[in-house]
């Protein structure tokens, strides 16, 4: 198979015939110096902050610092191809990325260039990377649930569409796993997902992409990668360009979910740029505007008003803490910006409680508005019960004699903890979650051995799916735990328990 040279020639001829010759007018400057990811340029007197510039090698830069005698440029690409004295051209436009259905299912860099070897991104639309977030009048309160498929989260810290829920924890506590499960659970819901990997090992990103592909999530997911080896400017803009791609769907009345994994690394990249640009360092050497760097990003997640189509953008930023230090600069900043946080703890993780969520300090400020009624009913007091169980558990370890009521509360607590454990890549639908939490909180698991709780749950859900699908359908349709539904569930569980044999 060879290219037909005549056909190619005719294509070229057509292009040349339609070529419109125009005088090329451009604003230029000269490179004074280049260092890690940044350049200082003399000239460009008319350039505006955030404007795109181009170096002779074709590399794109952004005007970052406008100083009296020079312009500080952040270089979005290979800065080793740039030399002192090179002519820099202002392009007179803002950095934009391709958006639309063409980006779905792709692995892209922060400029929208493909990294998956599947050819160019086919998209006719572009959207600026940095835009000001929608205002008060264009929004409405968050009220639709975004199911993550994780029992502990959907029951205790529910997330709504348009909410920003922080996932925070030390390294290796399953932060990414929670986010990936949330993406997997968006299958067949129409929610478009975006996973932005910032400063991560390329091997970890490859694993994530592989997992998404294996569970069929790449059909509705875009992965934006700026790995640990990419220059800091690209790591800095990656979340903004991911958000631009996601916003496109929000403004078209659809729903999107974006995961920033993780923002601590983005802050570090921003710190590097700012220090190289000689902006004054502040706390932990971060620049003074690192708060704004995150707030203007997360503010772009929104639930739009019905006039604007009612679309939404939900974000799950991830922050990695050092030795559980949540009072460090970046964690406190992002905690204060987001609408709640899911706090993952290493000691829980190693005890086998996975997801290792600490129910006591994890919150969702949107709360019950983001839950279906049935879930609200079964999971109402769960968070507080679990917190008081943790207290009792510590007390019980002293070996004191306990009265029967306390002992019962402890036993219930052990079973709840066991129930809230959930393996990775196995998100549950909300109806299944309601049924298993119902069974536990209403005492149907009190006589099951703690070690058999998960077996009981699996078999119960299997039984419900196979034999009582009418009950599941009834619950899914009503979305509420009416008396009829409740008694149907009760009798189904009782029927199941008669035949239940552990093992």
């Amino acid at each position, binding site marked *: 198979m060879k290219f*037909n040279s005549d056909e*190619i020639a005719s294509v070229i001829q057509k292009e040349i015939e339609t070529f419109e010759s125009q005088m090329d007018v451009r604003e230029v400057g000269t490179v004074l110096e280049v260092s890690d990811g940044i350049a200082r340029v003399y*000239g460009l007197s008319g350039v505006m902050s955030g404007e795109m510039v181009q170096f002779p090698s074709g590399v794109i830069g952004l005007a970052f610092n406008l100083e009296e005698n020079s312009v500080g440029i952040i270089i979005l690409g290979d800065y080793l191809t740039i030399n002192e004295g090179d002519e820099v051209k202002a392009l007179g436009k803002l950095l934009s990325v391709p958006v639309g259905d063409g980006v779905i299912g792709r692995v892209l860099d922060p400029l929208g260039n493909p990294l998956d070897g599947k050819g160019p991104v086919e998209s006719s639309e572009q959207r600026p990377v940095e835009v000001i977030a929608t205002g008060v009048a264009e929004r409405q309160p968050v009220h639709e649930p975004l199911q993550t498929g994780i029992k502990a989260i959907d029951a205790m810290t529910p997330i709504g569409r348009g909410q920003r829920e922080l996932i925070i924890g030390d390294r290796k506590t399953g932060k990414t796993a929670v986010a990936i499960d949330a993406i997997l659970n968006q299958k067949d819901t129409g929610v478009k997902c975006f996973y932005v990997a910032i400063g991560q090992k390329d091997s970890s990103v490859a694993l994530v992409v592989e997992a998404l592909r294996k569970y069929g999530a790449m059909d509705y997911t875009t992965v934006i990668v700026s790995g640990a080896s990419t220059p800091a400017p690209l790591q800095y803009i990656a979340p903004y360009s991911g958000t631009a791609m996601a916003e496109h769907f929000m403004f078209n009345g659809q729903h999107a979910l974006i995961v920033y994994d993780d923002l601590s690394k983005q802050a570090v990249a921003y710190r590097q740029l700012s220090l190289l640009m000689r902006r004054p360092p502040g706390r932990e050497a971060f620049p003074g505007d690192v708060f704004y760097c995150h707030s203007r990003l997360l503010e772009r997640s929104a639930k739009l008003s019905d006039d604007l189509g009612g679309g939404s953008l939900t974000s799950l930023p991830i922050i990695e803490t050092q030795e559980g230090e949540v009072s460090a600069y970046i964690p406190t900043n992002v905690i204060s910006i987001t609408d709640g946080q899911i706090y993952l703890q290493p000691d829980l993780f190693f005890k086998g409680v996975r997801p290792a969520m600490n129910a006591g300090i994890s919150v969702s400020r949107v709360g019950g508005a983001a839950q279906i009624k049935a879930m609200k009913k079964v999971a109402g007091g769960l968070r507080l019960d679990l917190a008081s169980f943790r207290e009792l558990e510590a007390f019980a370890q002293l070996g004191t004699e306990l009265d029967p009521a306390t002992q019962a509360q402890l036993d219930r607590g052990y079973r709840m903890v066991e129930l809230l454990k959930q393996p990775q890549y196995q998100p549950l639908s909300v109806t299944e979650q309601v049924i298993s939490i119902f069974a536990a909180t209403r005492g149907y698991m009190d006589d099951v051995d703690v070690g058999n709780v998960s077996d009981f749950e699996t078999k119960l859900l299997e039984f419900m799916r196979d034999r009582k699908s009418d009950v599941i359908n009834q619950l899914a349709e009503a979305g509420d735990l009416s008396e009829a539904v409740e008694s149907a569930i009760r009798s189904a569980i009782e029927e199941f328990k008669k035949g239940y044999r552990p093992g």
Partner: protein
Amino acid sequence: MSEHATVLDSDEQQVGTLYAKALLGSAGDAVDEILSDFEALVVECLDQHPGLETALASPRIGQEEKEGILDRIFRNRVHPLLLNFLKVLCRRDRIASLRTIQTTAVQMREEALGKQRVIVQTAQALSDEQKATIAEALKNKLGKDAVLIEQVDESLLGGIVLRIGDKVLDGSILGRMNSIRSVVAEGVQRAIRNQYDSLMSS
């Protein structure tokens, strides 16, 4: 870069602007005389005898001795004000910025006179007639007298490139060919994507 040999050091540029402003301010009516003396001094004296500049900038030679040198060489050859200015530069340890001050002073003078420097790059040297046409056209466009600085660059192949301050007007054949190249490359790529089969000969 030949026109602005020193312009790349922005700190020095700042110093140059400051001193040039002071020189022009104190020059009064003799400004053009002083500037031409200044240019001659740089081109004919300092460029020919690099040792002199080294001596003037050297910290090992005392101020009085430097002023003596300047007096002996330049008295009655340059405008007295310029001589004084050189002495001030010695005293302030700014001899290193001399050339920046000179080029900046010339530029500021041109600006004050309403002149605009325009670098004209062509593939072949321009005739006087062509220069006049270009100058006329620029005057109409800019509303200022254009000071043409010609550069011949054969790689342009043809046409003309004008550099007015930071703005570049590229009407060269080279520039046009570069844009045709990117347009054609894009078009062919698009064609390959869209009509892959018809482009292949089996």
